[in-house]
């Protein structure tokens, strides 16, 4: 029941984000200069920011960027994990040891430290579109290590299995054996890792955005929208400014609730 509700909520939010152009009352960069910092009204459901942009519209457009690009980054990182971890586990021996050593090096640095360091070293004065691509590309490129370790262990177990021995005996070898027999059997782990990575990447983007290293203005993202909290003096001052935070919590918790306990264990 909870799982279905979570999936339904995620679907609704994803659809709203996908059709942001039709749902949002204004563009994400449209400025209503006559009413900056206005309180919620019928015209502006969540009020306007300090340069008069409609917060509700920016939230919907921001959701589109965060919610649609996080799965794209998760897909890329899962593919990388499958290639590096899966192949290393399948090949075994020195390959597996080298891959595990490299993964350990990656995992020995705290994820946020690594992310902030790499993002900080890349140019910040880029166009908003490039900043979106760079942010999510970094998440994908740096986020594969934990999944790779799990996939490496999964592939190593498969390597010893009877059906692979039989496939080898019947003349199958190399990349064909990996693609046709190993990868399909790793599918449950791949799917679970993909699903688990999405909320991690959403939260990481929010962290980067709040530190000014995420998506560049005027393009909205949840991290960028949360930066508005920096200007608040107290929580009760303008609670509608917390709308992106509430939506972020709801979406991330729905991603976690949508997973069964068994999938989490993978």
């Amino acid at each position, binding site marked *: 029941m909870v799982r279905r509700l979570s999936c339904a909520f995620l679907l609704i939010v994803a659809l709203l984000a996908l059709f942001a152009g039709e749902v949002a009352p204004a563009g994400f960069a449209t400025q209503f200069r006559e009413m900056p910092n206005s309180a919620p009204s019928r015209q502006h459901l969540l009020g306007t920011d300090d340069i008069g942009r409609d917060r509700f519209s920016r939230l919907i457009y921001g959701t589109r960027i965060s919610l649609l690009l996080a799965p794209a980054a998760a897909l890329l990182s899962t593919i990388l994990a499958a290639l590096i971890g899966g192949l290393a586990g399948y090949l075994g021996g020195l390959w597996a040891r080298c891959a595990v050593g490299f993964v350990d*090096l990656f995992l020995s*640095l705290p994820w946020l*430290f690594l992310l*902030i360091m790499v993002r900080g070293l890349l140019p910040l004065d880029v166009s908003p579109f490039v900043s979106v691509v760079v942010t999510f590309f970094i998440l994908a490129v740096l986020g594969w290590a934990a999944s790779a370790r799990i996939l490496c262990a999964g592939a190593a177990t498969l390597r010893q299995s009877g059906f692979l021995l039989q496939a080898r005996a019947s003349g199958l070898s190399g990349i064909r054996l990996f693609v046709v027999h190993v990868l399909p059997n790793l599918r449950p782990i791949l799917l679970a890792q993909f699903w688990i990575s999405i909320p991690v990447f959403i*939260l990481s983007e929010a962290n980067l955005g*709040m530190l000014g290293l995420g998506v560049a203005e005027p393009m909205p993202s949840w991290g960028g929208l949360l930066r508005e909290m*920096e200007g608040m003096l107290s929580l009760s001052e303008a609670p509608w400014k917390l709308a992106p935070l509430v939506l972020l919590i709801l979406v991330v*918790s729905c991603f*976690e609730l949508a997973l069964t306990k068994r999938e989490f264990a993978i």
Partner: protein
Amino acid sequence: MTSRIARHVLSIAAVVLLGAFLSALLVRSAPGFDVDEQQLDTRLNASSLRALHEAHAQEHTLFRFYLSYLRHALRGDLGVSRSLGQPVLGLLRDRAPVTVRVVIAGLALGWLLALALGLTAALARTTAYDVATLIASGLFLCLPAAALALLSVLLNAPGYLGIALIVFPKVFRYMRNLLDKAYSLPHLCTARAKGLSELRILGFHVLPVIAPEILALAGVSVSVAVGAAIPIETLCGIAGVGQLAWQAALGRDLPLLVNITVLVTLVTLSANFGADVMSHILRSEGA
């Protein structure tokens, strides 16, 4: 045991050296590495610019920079920060105690919360309490570290509270699962049937079973806390190593970044190593 420790120490040394080299490589290949703000000063003449260029010449060859860094580091000289113009050792010496205090306080509070809620949930075993604690931990699990930092600023709460609230849900969830598993062991049924009190069961039959895993979790939680220290210190204005790492990354400060990477890697690996050795001792004692 001794060979296990020796292997761990060797692997820590290798990972730290490799990590430092990779971070140097990363900074060296980052766009704008060669640019020094001082070079844009129009008052400087050609010879001054040449002197500036020569001052950084050592950093232009990665291997030369790295070898010279290692040689100096062995003598206790960690170089001079390019962006702050101060010796790196002095900067780390000033800021490390601040971060250590924040991280330790955050870890202690986070673990205390997780232990208190986890154990009371295990002892009470009521659905309502279970659901309430799961919702509370789930809520904090869904909050980005930077948002927690801002919330603690808004609520005038100390910075370590942010770290505590990042550590707490991770520890709590894992501990709750461990306790669930331990309480479902068949010999506990016998212990209850023999009339042992719940506290005695917890102290003598549950905690010893989960202790090695809890220790391993303690090692991992150090890494989580150190990672969270960067946004927390940056947004809460705490002058610690986390804030320094942030400034070093933005200023493309090669000497500072390499040293901070070494320090962070050392701390996280040592914590994991300590936890691993302790849990190994506990396991072998249990066996």
